[in-house]
């Protein structure tokens, strides 16, 4: 392990510890039973295999948006429409599941693929606007998310709503839903797909020509342009692929066997979660499952804590915020880093002198 990697791991660990310490402080302030709350938060998911299953299940959507947004951000496009892609992916998969009848094995595949396509359309709009009109993709993608939300609400309430239930869609047929892998948990085949997507995402970014072009464009667009890379094409492809993966994520999530109807009336926030995941994973899809696991563990712990004690699960958002801000802060622990570099330089010098 090189010293920079060692330092990065160390810094991430310190950031997590500080964030947890602050959240413990908050729990001490607001809770009547702080010790139980902290114990539930940290060890809750390990107490029952069902709880641990929940962690793995919660990882699945996080991996999809984590990989998708990583690819978009690698091209240095701050496209936040992954949130919208995920949402519309869920809607499109539900609509196809409800209205199209297909054989058992094929049904979910078609639903998920079309969900991916819809997701691509959503992230492509800010990218096209950027390329054609120079409009800031950050601002346009934020607006797109709200457009998608209200559009999906319209379809949900005016087209696919089941009058019998009130707020939910018609029943999603069993033929479309994914199957549980381990009985007794809620872990479904989406997990395999998610891991596959993380692997393919890694191969795409780090082992293909277009992946190399995306990374180069992200690092230095001017240089990429001068080296003959078609930057417009690279930007569009990266946003298309990223949106596709986020869309698939939405499709997989709604076909999770525990849902029997589409009921999403608000944005779920997986697009924002992707930002913390990619900061932990340094935008490398290969590390995304690890950071997704960490976040899912924290979430599950928090919801166990919220059910058992008087602390609400929203504390996780605070932990998340502190972690990302510390990890991205270049100057955080930089004195330590300089010392480490100095020490190594001295050591090298000593070796040379000894020779």
């Amino acid at each position, binding site marked *: 392990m090189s010293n920079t990697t060692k330092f990065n791991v160390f810094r991430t660990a310190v950031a997590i510890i500080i964030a947890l310490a602050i959240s413990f402080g908050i729990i001490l302030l607001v809770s009547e039973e702080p010790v139980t709350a902290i114990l539930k938060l940290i060890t809750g998911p390990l107490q029952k295999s069902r709880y641990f299953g929940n962690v793995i299940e919660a990882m699945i959507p996080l991996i999809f948006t984590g990989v998708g947004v990583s690819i978009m951000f690698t091209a240095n496009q701050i496209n936040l429409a992954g949130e919208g892609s995920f949402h519309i992916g869920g809607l499109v998969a539900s609509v196809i599941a409800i209205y199209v009848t297909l054989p058992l094995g094929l049904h979910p595949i078609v639903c998920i693929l079309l969900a991916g396509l819809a997701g691509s359309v959503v992230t492509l709009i800010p990218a096209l606007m950027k390329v054609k009109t120079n409009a800031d993709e950050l601002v346009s993608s934020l607006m797109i998310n709200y457009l998608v939300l209200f559009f999906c609400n319209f379809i949900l309430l005016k087209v696919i709503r089941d009058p019998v239930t009130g707020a939910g869609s018609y029943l999603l047929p069993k033929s479309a839903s994914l199957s549980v892998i381990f009985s007794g948990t809620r872990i479904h085949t989406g997990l395999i797909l998610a891991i596959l997507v993380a692997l393919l995402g890694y191969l795409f970014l780090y082992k293909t020509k277009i992946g190399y072009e995306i990374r180069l464009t992200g690092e230095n667009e001017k240089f990429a342009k001068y080296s003959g890379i078609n930057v417009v094409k690279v930007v569009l492809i990266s946003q298309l692929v990223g949106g596709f993966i986020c869309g698939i994520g939405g499709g997989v999530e709604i076909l999770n066997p525990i849902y029997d109807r589409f009921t999403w009336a608000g944005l779920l926030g997986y697009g924002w979660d992707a930002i913390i995941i990619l900061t932990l994973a340094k935008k490398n899809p290969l590390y995304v499952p690890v950071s997704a696991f960490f976040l899912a563990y924290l979430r599950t712990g928090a919801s166990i804590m919220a059910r058992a004690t008087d602390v609400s699960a929203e504390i996780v958002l*605070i932990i998340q915020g502190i972690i990302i801000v510390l990890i991205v802060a270049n100057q955080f622990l930089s004195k330590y880093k300089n010392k480490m570099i100095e020490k190594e330089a001295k050591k090298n010098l000593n070796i040379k002198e000894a020779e």
Partner: protein
Amino acid sequence: MLDAILSPEFFSSILRLTTPILFATLAATIAAKSGIINMALEGIMLFCALFGVIFSSLTGSAWLGLLLTLIAGGLIGYILAFFVLKLKTDEIIAAIAINLIAAGGTVLLMLAFSGDRGNSASIISFQTPRINIVGLGKIPFLGEVLSNHNILTYFSLISVVILHFLIYKTPLGLKIRAVGENKDAAESVGISSQKVQFIALIISGVLAAAGGFFLSGGYMTKFTTNMTAGRGYIALAASSMGGNTPIGGLLVSIIFGTAQALANAMQLSTLPSELVQMLPYLVTIVGLGFYSYRLKKKHERLSGK
């Protein structure tokens, strides 16, 4: 339907709906002028909407509550500046972090203060007063539109003038613009860019706080979860469409206020309300596209292509 839109109440509602967006847009403008995208506006507004309720309830006065909320907003602006300028954090990521903390923190705080997760109705808080400007109310139609608003609505309009003056007529404004245009050039003539950006972000935080306070202490006296509903993001778009100038920002904010007022008015019609709710965001996207396209063409012309 048409009657409803042509009524003075409708135009009056435009002003009311414009107010929080205008404050936030001005906050985005001052930050952008100094060269920083302040995406944390959403979080600052959300925090300050809750702080407004808590502080006015604790002090028993709307004015003291407002003052403390503005200070708190400036403080969050300072924290953002500290992370971005001192710790060299990416400004977007730092903003996302603040927004996340606001989303979670407001729920926790509200639970601690009111015992409720959805809204703060159980906390008794105070509203800044509505005011009638003498004589204004007597003018037909226009009087009804312009008078009897919350005092913060008038403040927001005055802020446009103050901010315009600050940016274009004062030495500080000159420094802010210089740093925003070209940091290195500004440094080379002895301007401390860090100090200037700190000041700009603190002012930005105070303005966003005013917008947040208006939401919970302007036309109602309670905080509800996630009550900013993306206004901080709309403000970024509005500021950018307004060319990052206070007057431009005012005009675009009024467009958004109108779109929102239209959406509210049309909810009573037969049109599906979900589609009508898309209107303000659609206007933003199309407007942003047009504005950026024009700017791009202008640049291309100027650079002689």
